[in-house]
């Protein structure tokens, strides 16, 4: 433990009036800076100015897609098992593709309950779930709308992820045609 002894105030400080004026000056200085040199302020005026978000930031989830547009999720429930907030709800069903056993029928994430810890992303064995959408604001009118469903989670544009090769494999991406050729390989 360290004890910090406060320096006792000297007599000018104890007079109060000069210190009060000094405080007003600080306020005035920042007010003037907001008026004339707005761009140097360390804060952003949020709704108009958006913060710069990196793709490693844990934002809203998205589900990665296979070349044919189906979600990559195999409905194993690992994310739901890892989730500390119990906000992921998954129902599985049999896949129509004979090569794939299981497909996801319902995938709901309740963003009101979600704590954005990213454990679900780490748990995913097929890299289907990611949190790199950079969407950080959730504004809805009802509680139900905060629950993202399968359609919402898979409804993203590969153009928003130009540097991610995995995203470009999805329909609409630059590598989709190439991947589809491999994916649609004849089943022997």
């Amino acid at each position, binding site marked *: 433990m360290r004890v910090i002894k406060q320096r006792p105030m000297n007599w000018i400080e104890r007079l109060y009036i000069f210190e009060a004026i000094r405080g007003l000056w600080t306020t005035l200085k920042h007010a003037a800076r907001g008026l004339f040199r707005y761009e140097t302020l360390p804060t952003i005026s949020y709704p108009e100015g958006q913060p710069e978000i990196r793709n490693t930031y844990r934002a809203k989830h998205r589900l990665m897609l296979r070349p044919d547009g189906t979600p990559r999720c195999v409905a194993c429930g690992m994310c739901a098992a890892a989730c500390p907030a119990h906000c992921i709800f998954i129902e*599985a069903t049999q896949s129509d593709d004979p090569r794939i056993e299981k497909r996801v029928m319902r995938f709901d994430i309740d963003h009101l309950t979600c704590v954005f810890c990213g454990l679900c992303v780490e748990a995913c064995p097929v890299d289907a779930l990611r949190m790199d959408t950079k969407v950080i604001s959730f504004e809805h009118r009802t509680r139900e709308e905060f629950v993202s469903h399968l359609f919402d989670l898979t409804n993203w544009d590969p153009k928003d992820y130009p540097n991610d090769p995995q995203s470009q494999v999805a329909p609409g991406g630059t590598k989709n045609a190439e991947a589809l050729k491999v994916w649609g390989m004849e089943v*022997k």
Partner: protein
Amino acid sequence: MSNYYNMPKLPTEASPKVEIFVDDKAVMVPGDTNLLEALKAVGIETPHVCYHPYLPVSGNCRQCLVEQEGPRGRMLVISCYTPVTPGMKIYTPASSARVKNARKATQEFMLVNHPLDCPICDKAGECTLQENYMECGQNESRLRPEYGKNYHGNPAHQFVDAKGQVRGGKHVDLGPRVLLDEERCVQCDRCVRFMRSIAGSEQLQLAGRADHTYITTFPGEKLDHEYDLCVTDVCPVGAMTAKYFRFQKRVWLLSHTPTVSMDDSLGANIWLDHADGRIYRVMPRCNPEVNRSWLSNTSRLAFQEFDKNRLPSMELHKVTFGNGKIAIVAGGTCTMEDLAAMKMLKESLGDRAELFGGSLLKVTAPDGIAKSGDPCANRAGMKLMGFADVSELLKRASEFETLFTVNANLFGEDANAAKVLEKINTRVALTPFDDETAKKASIAIGVRHWSEVQGTMVNSLNIVQKLSACPVCPDEGLKAPYAVVAFLAGEKLESAADAFKKVTEYVPAFAGLSYDTIKSTGKLLEGGNA
């Protein structure tokens, strides 16, 4: 039980104790069994895949290796097929690195072509390979990624996946209820042995040789048997999956309630696996005396109707039963507690009430596996309680003015035979379901189903077995039948334990019993078979 020549002999309480040396320490083990069971009896678990206590020993997985001191030195033997002999010297991985390595190597071979798709496998969480891997495997993968896993099964089901890997047989339709995943199969042949020596109908076969072995049915035939869902239980991996439970729920999310199946008088011991307030599947609960590890499809799939067509709860008021004679009829699914409450009702009404019990369904022959063929589950209990058979009621139906049925769907079971009962004017039905009897009744009162009540029943082998309440009741206001009947009798039974106290008063054979003294596998009543 089948008399197959190498059916394992399981230790019992009467087994003679012999001394053997495990890791140079002397231990007393049951002497009339195999080494695997003997080691289990002293708390040493041996990993195994193909061995099953109620199936003939096949000894093909080589996972249960131990070292035995013999005339030619210490040799590796499989413990499942080695009989215990007095004075034998055994070495387990605790002292022998050779056994440890041998088990590890076996485990590695087992996983060479076994797909690592545990996240999507329905068996994950209760898979023998997973358990064995944690116990004796844990080897670093020596698999070269450029080769990957290879599929050697049925060539007709082979395909190449998007990564260029040979795979196959992901969902082979074996029959109306079972699907096979040939990739995951480890060829332990448990299912083949089950169908051959327990079910008695050899519908599954191993085809091919060595690495290329695969499970199949005979050409043009399907796996279709009253006990075919048991192959999904005996399957140590996720190769055999039941269609009704496929992808429904991850098994670690299920809670288990031990209870007794009340659709047959053998009272097969079951687990009700439930989550989110509904039952997802029914699994056999091992009881060596009753159903061993088996369960018929009828009992297993009955749960799908448990929450359908139910009567809602209603508020009960004091009732009077008129002046005429009253027939109180107990159905087959009535527990001992319900029967005791009905006896209380009879006592409150006096001599004008008579007790009947039973069902109008036909009694068939026992199949020797997990069914006695008698659909009236608690018939032995009714006999102990002094209930007359329901056929007596049909003969003397004209004497009665009131028919009071509890869990007895007489009109639904045999409409023709029950026609005489329509002459009885006042019909009160206590039943969980909105069935024929409830529709024909003047008053139908909803009660809890047998899966949602605590209680006891006496099975056809005269064993008292416990039922536990599974928390899946669709309407929390519903009461157990014994509570409703006791209320109508003007008395109060707060809990199943209170009702059981009444049972011990009425039935001398139950004297001194309580829920705590009845084991999970039941208690044999004095006096042998009923």
